[in-house]
């Protein structure tokens, strides 16, 4: 061949090869997932799962982008308006109603009806239903965070020779006995942060209180259920003084830290207590357990006692405008298959409450949440558990509600504190 011929043929071959490569790249579908919040241990592990998935499925590429938990609503609304949405998001299940109303989410039970019907059985119904809205399933939950929970220091309890409290009076007794110059009896986080309020709301729901009436038209957190729960807090803080003087500036994080440093015998929090502990590092010789926060000896609230309030904080949801729904669904199934779910159940991540039957059977969960497992075996776990409150206007109301919590702790009479803010919230509700 002439030189010119050789040059031309080289160019042709390169062109064909380049086209081939680019076509191959185009043929590989990209799935973008926005992961809101979560702690570094979880992120690392999810990335490993993604790597495995990508290796097992060369025709698609999953890319995870981490997003801040604090600005999650703004980011999504911004992206929705600019039509720059990802394919999958993982965030809390309480936000599902709002997002469905905006049209953001794809109804999985309609798009992948067979798969959904097949997988459904692995999950415990109350957890599965957290992602259900108006009859359609919009997400697959991985774990739930539940409130309220009580963390207790086993060494201190053993030394004082007392048993884990099983009702409110015992909580008070234990706190009083365990209050020494070295450590407080119990820490109740009481800032205006949402986590702190959810914990308290959980305790109140356990006593038969409710934030809104079941019909959703009346604010009822000034009912007896809440009043007595608030009185418990106030007594522990003001009457028995077994809590830190700075309770109103101690939030859930500081609570955990102080608990780890043995500055308190007990602490209330949510079920993700252990995962924060895992991140912060457990000191030598520290021995603690999680128990459900006990209910009052006699329930005084008007409504059924809720054994817990739940939120599936890392629920995988699909965006309605995604162009790669089939591939995204493959990934979602991968992240929620039994092997992966076992990781959430204590094998890799400690401190998340499982949502599947197989999750409750791992030895790690038995160690972290012994009484939840006992209830599972009895068949009563999550019985009466309901979703954490979430409805239009809730965000506005939480701050107002928080003021009644702080007001009572600072000396306002409990019923009045709740009545005043309930009235304000009723106004907000009616304006909606």
């Amino acid at each position: 061949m002439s030189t010119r011929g050789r040059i031309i043929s080289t160019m042709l071959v390169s062109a064909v090869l380049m086209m081939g490569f680019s076509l191959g790249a185009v043929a590989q579908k990209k799935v973008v997932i926005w992961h809101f919040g979560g702690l570094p241990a979880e992120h690392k592990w999810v990335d490993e799962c993604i790597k495995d998935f990508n290796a097992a499925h060369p025709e698609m590429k999953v890319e995870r982008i981490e997003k801040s938990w604090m600005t999650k609503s703004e980011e999504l609304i911004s992206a929705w308006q600019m039509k720059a949405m990802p394919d999958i998001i993982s965030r809390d299940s309480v936000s599902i109603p709002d997002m469905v109303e905006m049209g953001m989410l794809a109804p999985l039970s309609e798009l992948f009806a067979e798969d959904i019907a097949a997988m459904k059985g692995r999950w415990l119904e109350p957890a599965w239903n957290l992602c259900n809205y108006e009859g359609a399933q919009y997400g697959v939950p991985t774990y739930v965070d539940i409130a309220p929970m009580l963390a207790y220091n086993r060494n201190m309890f053993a030394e004082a020779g007392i048993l884990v409290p099983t009702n409110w009076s015992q909580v008070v007794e234990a706190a009083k006995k365990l209050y020494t110059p070295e450590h407080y009896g119990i820490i109740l986080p009481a800032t205006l942060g949402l986590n702190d309020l959810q914990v308290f709301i959980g305790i109140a729901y356990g006593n038969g209180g409710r934030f809104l009436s079941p019909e959703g038209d009346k604010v009822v957190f000034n009912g007896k259920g809440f009043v007595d729960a608030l009185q418990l807090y106030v007594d522990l803080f003001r009457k028995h003084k077994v809590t830190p003087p700075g309770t109103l500036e101690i939030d859930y994080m500081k609570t955990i830290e102080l608990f780890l440093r043995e500055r308190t015998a007990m602490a209330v929090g949510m079920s993700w207590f252990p995962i924060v502990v895992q991140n912060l590092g457990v000191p030598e010789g520290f021995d603690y357990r999680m128990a459900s926060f006990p209910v009052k000896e006699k329930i005084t609230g008007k409504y059924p006692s809720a054994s817990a309030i739940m939120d599936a904080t890392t629920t995988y949801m699909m965006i309605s405008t995604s162009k790669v729904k089939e591939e995204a669904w493959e990934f979602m199934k991968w992240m929620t298959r039994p092997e992966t779910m076992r990781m959430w159940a204590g094998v890799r991540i400690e401190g998340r409450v499982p949502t599947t039957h197989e999750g409750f059977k791992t030895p790690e969960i038995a160690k972290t949440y012994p009484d939840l497992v006992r209830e599972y075996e009895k068949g009563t776990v999550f019985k009466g558990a309901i979703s954490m409150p979430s409805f239009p206007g809730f965000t506005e109301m939480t701050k107002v509600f928080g003021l009644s919590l702080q007001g009572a702790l600072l000396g306002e009479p409990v019923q009045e504190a709740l009545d005043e803010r309930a009235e304000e919230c009723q106004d907000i509700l009616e304006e909606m």
Partner: protein
Amino acid sequence: MMKDSSTGTTRTLSQYLYVLPPVIVIVVFIIIPIFYAIDLSFYNVHLIKPRVKLVWLDNYFRIFRNKTFWEIFYNSVRWMGFGALATLLIGLGLGMFLNLEFRFNSVVRSLIFIPWIMPEVCAAFAWRWMLNSEMGVINEVLGRLNLISRYVAWLAEPNMVLYVCLWVAIWRIYPFISLMILATLHGIPREFYEAGAIDGANFWQRFCYLTFPQLRYALTIGALLTVIWLMNSFTTVFIMTEGGPLHYSEILPVLIYKMAFQSYRLSRAAALSLINFGILLTFSLLYLWVFRRQWRQV
């Protein structure tokens, strides 16, 4: 003969070109927003709900009828009053102290300004955490010195929290005041003092009749600057307590933010902004009136 290639009006025009840019910027970013706020405050704009209707003075009525507003207003008054007083006294004392001659004087003078240089967010964080009731260094030191038996909840105790936050604001401002005082003191010729000493005046008399009159000008400016800076201390309070337990450490700027971004009531927040603005305007006019003689010279 100076070269003047342009006619009278063109020259005037080009002179205006030098001077107008800041005016334009200020009108766009400062004057117009005020008018927009006035307009906004007559509606009931809400960040989430779309219905908008004209409500005239309803926002203002609701604000003035609200008990909490007056608590917060009272907080702001105390904040400015005690704040200005304390800052001026400390600034005055410190300025006079720095005027003395001692060995490491220049070192102290240069380091003293650091709180003012440090960004407000940083200062607020540093103090917030030192004042933490359980894990802060201040309680730790006080405990070790046996000055307290139980940890003090600096930022959670209703009666204390406002003044604690105020301290941080003062801490940032008094360096500036003290250096202003120092500059003024440097400007007073030594002969004055020497003459006063010869005439038999003691320290206190010298201070009252010689020093203080010279300082009056600096102190007045200091007072006005302080009040303005204090009225704008959103960041300090917000980072330290976000308004404190309940509303005990909340001042007007924080209320404005919360009304707009936590209660989502944009119009009512605009009304509050105007109330805040009104207070500031009063001080500005006061400033102008006090220095009216100087303006004639301008």
